[in-house]
């Protein structure tokens, strides 16, 4: 996998651009979708106006202006956080944009005749146009190969420079606009209008341009808006209670109290968290079609994983030599080795490797030996040398050539191997049966512990395989999956997903073929492989550019991390309120009831300094948490109970304590410079 270049958290160019964008984002129209920050801006404007009015009247409202300045900074820090997140996405989009085809396309005038074409700009192509792409041409837009075979360099999209084969029909018929045909030619039917191609969508998504709020974000927004209203009521009515008590609060004081109580921290960082989550996915070379899909990944309860390539290596490898009675294991190993010298298939090579690793045997083909190459017809390979003849191959083929009944022990062993999901190969020497090689689909090392980790997160893994039930059960047990679908067909995959969903669970799967499309569309998270068909890519809601099905697990973790980051900062933000009461309430009531100074447990110097310190802390904490919002809270595959305990301790309890220290420090700092103290 070659991920897009990592972008530093503090990339100078991005920060400069973000600073400018942050100011542009102050426009109330663009802030209106963020209720907390919108209220903060309104209040900042009000305090500014009031202070300006007083200044016009000849007063010197330094306190009002200072509060106003910090309220504006609070808003600015929030817009800055969003701008930084967008900037990082934009930097990634820039490299994609370079790949976008701007060349001319060869539009066929009378398809499928490829001799007649005219040149049109790629941007004018429409869906269902048919174009010719030849060696050295950029593919002008997304499409499906309807004729021809060619190798295509897709590094513009995937970062992988080795060319891939694209051909008509089958599972490798989709081509992506902006990729380069290296050899031969293709006739392509365009499947996306200009501006709606895969790369266009990727650019829009990583830039955050087409960002829509996800369901959890909407719910969280409602909670934050509700809290804002509640505190608005508390502060406005406080003016009434104050008036009754004989205390007229100034606007800056009430504004400071309000802004400190409403959840500005999470309000300011919420959209940055969402954009950064998408960005993390892109860094993993996965493109989601919506934020909703990323969030759904965190909610997944069941993972459908293809056996081949995901759970196992996919190619069968030698895992044991089993001699018939009367033959020594060393003799058998020798025969296995010699008979496989002529076998170039991965299976054949694995037999050589097994003989070397387990039996310490290595041989070069002897001088003058006749090698019998493995062929799909005979399904055997071997070696003839000095009148010695070694053969190995599929059991039925080898037995057919033998003419004699095999011993019972041999037959029993064949059955055992088949039951275990492996493939038996028979080995002979000069027509005598020596024994068996077991070829096994090896389960990837470490996959079992990953499944265990997933189980701790409450996620079930389901293995999907075309194998029969017995074979599937054996591999399922070895890999430690929770369930399996044997003899999988598109229909029974789809049925399984529907059944699990009917229980209210969410399902993720990956697939590449056209016949995966219905299941990909039905799954809550469908990850299509970039090497797959256009139909699969349209049906899924994510595309993995590396075409690595094991990534489904990382995708789930990224989804969870996104939700955890949101929850942690929300908890932190709300827990912060307690300290602000202790900072601001004594400060604003002390003029009336000096005895309430007893509530000033932080020992803040003066009422002005106390209020200002709380406001400054409230603003600075947004900037301080930007890196956390962008990087995400560290995720660990521990059970929900442990995760909750840990995060509640850090962000809940920490959220209560941290601001006490922060506000006190700021107050001491202000004292050092004799500001309002």
């Amino acid at each position: 996998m070659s991920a897009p270049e990592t972008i530093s958290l503090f990339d100078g160019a991005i920060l400069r651009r973000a600073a400018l964008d942050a100011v542009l984002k102050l426009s109330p129209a663009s802030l209106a979708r963020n209720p907390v920050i919108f209220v903060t801006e309104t209040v900042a404007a009000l305090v500014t106006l009031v202070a300006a009015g007083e200044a016009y009247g000849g007063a010197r409202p330094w306190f009002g202006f200072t509060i106003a300045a910090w309220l504006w900074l609070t808003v600015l820090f929030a817009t800055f956080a969003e701008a930084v997140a967008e900037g990082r996405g934009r930097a990634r989009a820039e490299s994609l944009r370079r790949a976008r085809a701007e060349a001319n396309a060869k539009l066929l005038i009378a398809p499928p005749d490829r001799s007649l074409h005219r040149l049109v700009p790629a941007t004018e192509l429409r869906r269902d146009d048919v174009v010719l792409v030849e060696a050295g041409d950029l593919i002008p837009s997304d499409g499906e190969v309807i004729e021809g075979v060619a190798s295509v360099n897709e590094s513009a999209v995937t970062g992988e420079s080795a060319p891939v084969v694209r051909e008509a029909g089958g599972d490798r018929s989709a081509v992506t606009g902006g990729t380069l045909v290296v050899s031969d030619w293709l006739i392509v039917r365009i499947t996306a209008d200009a501006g709606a191609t895969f790369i266009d969508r990727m650019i829009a998504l990583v830039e955050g341009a087409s960002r829509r709020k996800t369901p959890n974000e909407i719910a969280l927004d409602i909670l934050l808006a509700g809290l804002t209203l509640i505190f608005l009521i508390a502060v406005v009515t406080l003016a009434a209670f104050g008036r009754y008590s004989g205390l007229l609060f100034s606007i800056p004081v009430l504004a400071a109290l309000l802004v400190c109580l409403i959840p500005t921290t999470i309000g300011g960082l919420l959209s940055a968290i969402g954009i950064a989550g998408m960005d993390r996915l892109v860094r993993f070379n996965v493109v989601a079609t919506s934020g909703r899909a990323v969030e759904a990944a965190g909610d997944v309860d069941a993972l459908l994983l293809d056996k081949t390539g995901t759970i196992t290596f996919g190619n069968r490898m030698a895992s044991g030599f089993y001699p018939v009675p009367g033959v020594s294991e060393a003799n058998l190993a020798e025969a296995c080795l010699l008979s496989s010298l002529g076998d170039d298939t991965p299976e054949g090579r694995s037999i050589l490797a097994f003989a070397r690793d387990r039996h310490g045997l290595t041989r070069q083909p002897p001088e003058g030996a006749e090698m019998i190459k493995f062929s799909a017809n005979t399904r055997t390979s071997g070696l003839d040398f000095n009148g010695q003849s070694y053969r190995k191959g599929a059991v039925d083929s080898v037995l057919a050539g033998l003419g004699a009944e095999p011993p019972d022990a041999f037959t029993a062993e064949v059955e055992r191997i088949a039951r275990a999901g492996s493939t038996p190969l028979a080995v002979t020497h000069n027509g005598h049966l020596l024994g068996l090689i077991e070829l096994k689909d090896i389960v990837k090392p470490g996959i079992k512990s990953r499944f265990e980790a997933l189980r701790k997160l409450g996620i079930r893994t389901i293995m999907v395989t075309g194998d029969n039930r017995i074979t599937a059960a054996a591999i399922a047990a070895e890999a430690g999956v929770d369930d399996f679908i044997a003899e999988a067909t598109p229909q029974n995959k789809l049925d399984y997903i529907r059944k699990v969903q009917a229980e209210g669970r969410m399902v993720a799967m990956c697939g590449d073929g056209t016949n995966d499309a219905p299941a990909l569309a039905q799954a809550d998270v469908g990850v299509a492989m970039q090497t797959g068909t256009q139909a699969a890519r349209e049906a899924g809601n994510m595309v993995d550019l590396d075409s690595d099905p094991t990534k489904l697990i990382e995708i789930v973790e990224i989804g969870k991390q996104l939700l955890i980051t949101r929850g942690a900062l929300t908890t932190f933000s709300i827990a912060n309120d307690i300290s602000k009461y202790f900072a601001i309430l004594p400060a604003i009531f002390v003029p009336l009831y000096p005895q309430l100074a007893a509530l000033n447990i932080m020992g803040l110097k003066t009422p002005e300094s106390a209020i200002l310190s709380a406001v400054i802390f409230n603003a600075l904490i947004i900037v301080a948490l930007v890196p956390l919002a962008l990087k995400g809270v560290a995720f660990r595959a521990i059970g929900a109970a442990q995760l909750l305990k840990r995060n509640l301790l850090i962000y809940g309890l920490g959220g209560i304590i941290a601001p006490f220290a922060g506000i006190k420090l700021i107050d001491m700092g202000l004292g050092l410079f004799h500001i309002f103290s």
Partner: protein
Amino acid sequence: MTLSGLAYIGLLFAVVLGLALPLGRYMAAIFEGRVRWLAPLEGGLYRLCGIDPARQMGWQAYAVALLLLSLVHFVLLYAILRLQYYLPLNPAHIPGMSPRLAFNTAASFVTNTNWQAYTPESQISLGAQSYGLAVHMFLSAAAGIAAAAAVMRAFTGSHLTSLGNVYTDLTRITLYLLVPVALVAAILLVAAGVPQSFAASVTVHLVQTGAAQPIALGPVALQEAIKELGTNGGGFFNANSAHPFENPTALTNLLENALLLVIGFALPLSFGHMVKAPAQGRALMLSMAVLLAAGCVASYAAEAAGNPLHIAAGVAPQGNWEGKEMRFGIPASTTFNVSATGTSTGAVDGFTDSYTPLGGLVPLFLMQLGEVTPGGVGSGFYTIIVFALLAVFVAGLMVGRTPEYLGKKVQAREIKLAMLAVLILTLLILGGAGLSLLTASGLASLANAGPHGLSEMLYAWSSATENNGSAMAGLSADTPLLDYGLGIAMLLGRFAFMVPVLAIAGSLAAKPRLPASSGTFPTTGPLFVGLLVGVIIILGGLQFMPADTLGPLAEHFLLQAGKTF
């Protein structure tokens, strides 16, 4: 504080929990329709009223039926109070109530608040007491419990379209729970000396002067029983449970205190049984208990510490006895008042107005928290469900999934309705008290100036909105502003909260109930109890801190400095 004082609080909790455990199981059986020992009577009632007990109701139908029933009851009660002069059982010839007082009183009893802006002995007839008010003590309590049962059912399965049948719920709750338990309690109270009579008064000859003095009587025992059991709080006498005829002995005090807590604590246990996960119910009950115990101890500590001015003057070194029922002592008296404010009962056996500022802050704060400790019968349960949903939502994201409670996903719609419900309470309490303090009429109602006056007004609006009904006294409540204002606060605090909660229940009922896995946010155990308590305090109470600081807290610090109001 003394050890025996704390032991009394411990004893009370032990008695309540001992009763709540079996009662919770029994109530679950009632809600599930498994209690049938009065089946002929129950069936007869259905036939008489033309009720189809098999009919299932969605949340809208359930809510509409509850609202319409309450409206009918409200109109009926209003008419009874206005016309009581002409109605039977009015031996004292008490005239009809004024329109605004009748409005306030009808609102008060229909909403299970039992705020009493009237003086019972002189402004309400015996008849209106029994077929007017006492009836509503059953009906409004049953309505609250029915709504709670409807909310419970939302969690019992997947894709549910029905929350039950409001008519069978009301009938069964009244028939199998409120009436029998109240009857048994009434008999116990009569045995302990509480009168149960339709005579208007008994005339006694005073020992010293020999003069004749009439003492009001009535069907006190039954009203007392349902007053506590149904967390109503409307006393037969103005002195409420401090009156020796309502609460004659230390044993009746303990019994009445336990009665007013028991259904509230049993409801979450019933919930646990209904969702087949008793630990879930215990976690909710423990959260309620932790908050109430903290309140009892805090208030007792403040009162036992006493008034610094009295101590300095050497007049009352043994704590603050003012406003306590002398017969029961400081711990029993404060615990009763804290329990009554923690349950939206509003019964009192002491006068909060005379408490130390901190001792009085506790009842005020328990009301402002939203009445979940354990709150009014039914309403306390569905309120703590709202907080549980908010707690699960805020902290639940931290385990990396869309938050779910008992397998039901908590999403935008639930959060919207939950925040709406919390918002209404905040607006009514702070808006109402703030506005009242800006008007001349509101100021005229106050008996005290300064922070104490502020506390009195804040207390009244908190009590009305949270359907508590207890009064801090010191406030003249029968004014146009407060009669109408508090009446509206009671109605909105009840119904504008209940309807969104039923809507939440409807929305959750329709969702699949996901089986728990190791990735599920745990909603049992000490961690969740701590979280829920934290969320109740932060989301339910913190918004009242600025106002409370200008009221009881300011008064406390001023008192410490020797300044009184």
